[in-house]
């Protein structure tokens, strides 16, 4: 794991800067269904961004099956 996504705060910044999603700390455990702007197209954009950043491959299917942003972060840094 590189230091580029050292903690979930960095992941939150990435959601904001790369996808334009304003996710607050308390939103990290809320179901993704609560976010009207969220969709699988954005998730794949996130995959591109994270892979460019970390230089490795992210398991897309695992990511698609997550239900919260925190779970997403855990898949990304696993």
């Amino acid at each position, binding site marked *: 794991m590189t230091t*580029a*996504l*050292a903690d979930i705060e*960095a992941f939150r*910044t*990435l959601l*904001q*800067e*790369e*996808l*334009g999603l304003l996710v607050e700390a308390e939103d990290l455990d809320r179901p993704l269904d609560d976010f009207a*702007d969220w*969709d*699988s*197209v954005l*998730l*794949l*954009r996130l*995959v*591109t*961004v994270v892979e*460019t*950043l970390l230089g490795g491959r992210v398991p*897309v*299917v695992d990511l*698609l099956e997550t239900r919260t942003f925190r779970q997403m972060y855990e898949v990304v840094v696993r």
Partner: protein
Amino acid sequence: MTETENRVADPAGTWHAPQALATLRALHREGTLTARYGRVRALLTRMPASDLPAAGQLLARLDPREVCRHTDVPVVAVSVTGHSTVAPLVAPLTAELARHGLLLEPKVAPYGSYLQDLMRPATPGEDQPQVTLCLLDAHTVFDDVTVPWRVEDVEAAARARLSLVAGAVRAHQEAGRGLLVVNTVPLPRRYSHQLVDLRSRARLGAVWRDFNRGLLLLAEKHPGVVTVDLDPLVAEGVPAWDARTAQYARARLSDALLAAYAREAAHIVRARLGRTRKCLVLDLDGTLWGGVLGEDGSAGVELGAGLRGEAFQEFQRVLAQLASQGVLLAVSSKNDSDTVRETLRTHPAMVLREDAFVRVNANWKAKHDNLRDIADRLGIGLDSFVFVDDSLFECGLVAEQLPDVAVVRVDEEPALHPSALLADGWFDLFELTEADLQRAGRYRTEALRQEFREDFGSYQDYLEGIGLEVVLRSPRESEIGRVSQLTLRTNQFHLATERLQVPQVAARTLRQGQHVIAVRARDRFGDHGLVGALFLRREAEVLRIDNFVLSCRVFSRGIESACVAAVLEFARNTGANAVTGRYVPSPRNSAFSSFYAEHGFTVTGTDPDDHNAVVFRHDLGDVAPAPAHLRLHAAFGPSDGETV
């Protein structure tokens, strides 16, 4: 952490601003991006292309209506449809349009609904999108092929699908639903290489090209259709698709290809809005040739001979190619004028001679002053200019002083000059007309007219000496393209600013009670060609001038007054009791807001169908004749007789 820090610096040097994305993100983070949208265009102008999709993600989240409350930016309604998931186009398209000062109002169709979208009838009262983008991909064909398949199966599927697409495109065009953009489809290796015998694989390639050829020919059949060929984009090294995005999100064109496509689409939108650039102003040292003319002398500059010299010559050939299609070339160079002219005339390897340029401004003044001077002399706006220079300083200064001018910075590698110039389709237009091909010649003739004018005591003497002839008649079929182009590209003398594509102009020439009148002009120096158009409509006893457009090249010669005189005369001869005219304010036509009032019309109010439109009326009581210094020939229609 920002991703910006991890990106590689742009190889073109510091012209691109790597911090622009960080600035945009800061505005987004502060929640002030909407309020400070006015800054966005400048930030995007110098943003590396690789950062634009990320910028688009932020900009696409803004509410266009909120942005409009803070900034005066033109909104473009674009409908996006296609065979697969098309939503990923929105972010890069938002950014590409914002680079050109346009705000995207997207309407995204649900998955796979393109045939239905294109074929449904226009709903009355519905706001039509200005442009519809219909994205096609390999699944457009392969969805109809089942395993196991042979080339013949793909061939049958491709034929059937092409015929469906062609039918849908025809329905869309016949319903008058505006400009439609389709694209060719790259063949992914994952299909070609499922065939193990090499003969079949080659055959699949041929079948695939036939499909793409059919898509390209749609643009020939329908003037309101543009086919974007994705091959040249893929040939630049852009991957055509991403297996996982295709599998899991059914988005069958890669993000990178969508970004490249968005750039092309933005050029099409720009052309649609009449924002095609007209004039290319070039620096000399380091741009047209290598070395420094003032130090190395005419014989010492790098041009034609040597590796770099050949590269500069090649760039000149690209410029000559653009010039042959109506792009006006001019020079702004900090050099001694005589040395420059000598070099242009005598250097054996110059592709572009002195007469290739409509203006050569070689002097020691600031380049932005020279650009203003060239704009004044040619009578075209700075927003029609592209400026090319290798100096970061000059590029930066022009960009800062004249934000309307598009700045292309070329660097120290002349082999890359053509790509830098062609990276944006600054001069893209729908079709070339006779006027484009003759444009440079016309501007040079204009210089002769100016010299002639200087010999006269007064402007009126000059007008009387110039032997102007004005002809008004219905456009011939070959002239419809030019009439459409005038409505698309003219911004100043365009009284009701109504942009019409070729089919719309053609339709008006056929409609009962409507007249499209082309205005042609010539004088002793040459033919100005088709310089204007009038759109008339007869309603009972009233002849309405729906729109009137005139090229800025021929202002102030009485042509516009002659046109009005001819229309009034025509109205009177055909039993009308009044003529009305409409003025619809636009950002560029305010100089002509009182044109009708100056020609004997009185204001009667606003148009009930369009409250922005001011309506003027002339009751034909006192009809002023056409100016005496010109000869007017007017023939409005086969049954209308001819008034000379």
